[in-house]
């Protein structure tokens, strides 16, 4: 499988990739200028929009991309604002000094809190962050000596840029910061980190098996998001000149969430729309002030129901058809690199594996091994424990009984993403593609091994360094080549949902194979495929084996199994009942009994 390489100059690629960024800025300027000139939109709405846009961007990265809804983000915003005010009062620090101190404080807080809270699932995470938010609000309101309690603090330092007036200086600082942070956020969102985040939102388990260190990435993005909130808060304090607890209450939280959802979560740029429209509303609804709270609540409920993806979501859907790019060029390298062989030792060795669920013995003292570049099939009646076995091997379920040696290394008890990085990839019985990513993006996650989730990688991707961009193009081309191999080149930009079941399973195999694994675990990949598709699948699997990949597959189709396997392992009631070549297993009495019930 040799292809030719074509590559675009990084800057051109960057401009093309971030056309949305420039379009947003241009569009905003185009619409806002006449509105400001004619007095409908006030200058200060524009400026405060910048402040809140930063906050909403941070929230979007956290929720729109990663799926974590933090009700407490207003707390980081509050700390950002109050730290600047308090440090100015106590130490006379300037806006810059106070802002940096606030940022540091918030990052540390987020990293600690994140480590604790991010282990919680959905609703509980929301509650935990809400509790944090209330706590901070309570501290602000009652810690009179430092924060001024109910009265708040004044005299927040102003910024000055050379000869310009404080107002103009601040406006420039705010919008400069906003544009810069917008740039960083968009780059991040479109990079491998963005894909990894959306993978986490789609399916955490599947993401982990695609080499993504879920907990670490969540913590880092939580911290980044808090950082955005911090900067936003500091600028907010500087702009208003005072800080007061009312700006950081539950209502304020709701306003921000409303901006996020109204504009469109999951887009980054949607936030700008949401922020501007909702900042304008209070001015438009003057006499309605008494009903403003009620109005926001109703609006929020309506948005959640009718337009969960917001305005940006609607715009995106319209442009989806136009934005479809042809599957990119082909790559100048063998598609599959034969993985390094580690001596004569079996690639996988399972020793006395066991697992119980309550009183049920799902897997009972199973031992087996698979040699390099062999195809071994795992068969058994429904409910025999096959998928559980695969889950234990891949780390999805923690192994507590027995040992697994992968390429000579003891991987017992390791996390699934660690095992994946060592070279093990898998598919799932009920296919688990990333629904928030397109077809080609799914395969790209496989190629690039997700993201290592480190702060360094976040920086590199946010800054969109040339090397990162070249890498991205290479990965995209590689993924396109994989899609071409399975005949899905034209469906590259399709959302996963529109593909029929059989094709989705094929994409899942491609995603796993694209990660260049040493061992590939396939869970009922042939289920639901017609005869032709099964033949193609068999050929594909054989090709992978010939390239040096070891394969363990679970299958119900006996013909398929007998045809393709070098070895067959039969289990029933969690126990190994037979093992050997297809011919041997066919004759085995215990196997007959298990299947035919004699």
């Amino acid at each position, binding site marked *: 499988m040799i292809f030719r390489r074509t590559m675009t100059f990084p800057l051109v690629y960057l401009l093309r990739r971030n056309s949305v960024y420039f379009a947003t800025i241009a569009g905003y300027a185009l619409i806002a200028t006449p509105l400001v000139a004619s007095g409908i939109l006030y200058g200060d709405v524009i400026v405060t929009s910048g402040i809140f846009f930063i906050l909403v961007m941070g929230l979007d990265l956290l929720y729109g991309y990663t799926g974590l809804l933090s009700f407490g983000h207003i707390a980081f915003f509050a700390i950002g604002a109050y730290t600047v005010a308090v440090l100015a009062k106590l130490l006379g620090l300037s806006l810059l000094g106070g802002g940096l101190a606030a940022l540091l404080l918030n990052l540390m807080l987020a990293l600690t809190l994140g480590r604790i809270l991010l282990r919680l699932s959905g609703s509980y995470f929301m509650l935990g962050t809400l509790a944090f938010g209330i706590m901070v609000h309570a501290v602000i309101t009652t810690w009179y000596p430092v924060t001024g309690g109910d009265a708040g603090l004044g005299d927040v330092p102003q910024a000055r840029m050379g000869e310009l007036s404080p107002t103009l200086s601040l406006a420039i600082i705010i919008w400069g910061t906003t544009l810069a942070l917008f740039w960083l956020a968009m780059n991040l969102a479109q990079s491998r980190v963005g894909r990894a985040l959306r993978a986490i939102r789609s399916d955490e388990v599947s993401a982990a098996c695609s080499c993504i260190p879920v907990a670490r990435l969540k913590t880092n993005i939580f911290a980044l998001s808090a950082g955005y909130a911090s900067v936003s808060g500091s600028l907010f304090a500087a702009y208003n000149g005072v800080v007061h607890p009312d700006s950081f209450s539950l209502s304020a939280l709701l306003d921000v969430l409303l901006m996020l959802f109204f504009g469109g979560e999951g887009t980054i740029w949607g936030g700008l729309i949401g922020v501007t429209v909702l900042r304008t509303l209070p001015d438009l609804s003057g006499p309605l002030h008494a009903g403003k709270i009620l109005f926001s609540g109703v609006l929020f409920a309506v948005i959640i129901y009718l337009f969960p993806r917001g305005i940006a979501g609607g715009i995106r859907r319209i442009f989806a058809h136009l934005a479809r790019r042809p599957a990119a060029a082909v790559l100048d390298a063998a598609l599959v690199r034969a993985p390094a062989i580690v001596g004569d030792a079996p690639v996988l060795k399972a020793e006395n594996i066991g697992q119980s669920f309550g009183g049920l013995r799902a897997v009972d003292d199973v031992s087996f091994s698979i040699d390099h570049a062999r195809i071994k099939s795992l068969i058994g009646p429904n409910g025999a424990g096959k998928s559980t076995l695969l889950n234990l091997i891949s780390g999805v379920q923690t192994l507590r009984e027995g040992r697994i040696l992968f390429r000579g290394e003891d991987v017992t008890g390791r996390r699934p993403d660690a095992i994946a990085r060592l070279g093990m990839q898998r598919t799932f019985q009920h296919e688990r593609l990333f629904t928030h990513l397109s077809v080609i993006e799914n395969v790209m996650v496989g190629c690039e091994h997700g993201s290592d989730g480190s702060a360094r990688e976040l920086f590199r991707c946010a800054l969109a360094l040339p090397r990162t961009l070249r890498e991205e193009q290479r990965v995209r081309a590689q993924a396109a080549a994989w899609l071409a191999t399975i005949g899905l080149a034209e469906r590259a930009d399709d959302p996963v949902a529109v593909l029929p079941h059989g094709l989705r399973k094929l994409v899942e195999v491609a995603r796993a194979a694209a990660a260049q694994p040493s061992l590939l675990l396939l869970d009922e990949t042939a289920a639901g495929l017609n005869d032709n598709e099964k033949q193609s699948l068999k050929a594909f699997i054989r090709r992978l084996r010939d390239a040096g990949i070891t394969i363990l597959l679970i299958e119900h*189709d006996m013909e398929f*199994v007998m045809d393709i396997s070098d070895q067959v392992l039969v289990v029933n009631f969690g126990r190994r009942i037979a093992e050997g070549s297809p011919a041997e297993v066919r004759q085995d009495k215990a196997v007959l009994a298990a299947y035919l*019930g004699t």
Partner: protein
Amino acid sequence: MRALLEIEEVWAAYEDGAPVLRNVSLRLDAGELVAVLGANGAGKTTLLRVVSGLLPCRRGRVRLTGEDIAGLLPHRRVAMGLVQVPEGRQMLSGLSVEENLLLGGYVHRHDASALARGLDEVYSLFPRLKERHRQLAGSLSGGEQQMVALGRALMAKPKLLLLDEPSFGLAPLVVTDTFAIIARLRDQGMPILLVEQNAKKALEVADRAVVLRDGAVVATGSAAELLASDEVKASYLGGLPGAGG
């Protein structure tokens, strides 16, 4: 004579798009046991979900004794006598055996004496359940859970029984017992729609059968015909001895 259950040209899909059932038609007459066979992912469980109302059909009709039940929510269908024993038996594990059985008779809850009689009948059919009637359903063995599942269904006084893979995850001996009970129900005149992966067991007890593949019907006929046919053998007995593979 009007069929008891009529599934006409049904197309169904899950929320996210691709069709799982394609133009499936099937009829079941009073007193019949019809088996639905096919490999994993063929759409068998989906078919039962559509019949029970857990999944809507995009196109086509489902009729019970001539009445279109397409719009009805699951609990209404149960009240009409359409009762399903779901795949894996789905015990209410935190509740006792007796509570599970009682909930089986939920649609008749206002008739206390009928429920009491129903409970007696189930206990006489499954004496083991009477012994363990206070035990938590989640702590029972597979075979005992199977008894609870069937007993629950019987408590609802079904006019048509839908069985989803009764052999799933059970020991061969238990499977034999289960099918003996199914045969007995059939002999008593209970119409049954049986979804099964174990083709041999299913065809031994069925009158007619239908084979699904990729959500479409690929073969239909009497149980005897299908037992002899190569199509069925190939699709999933193939390769194993005793099936001519």
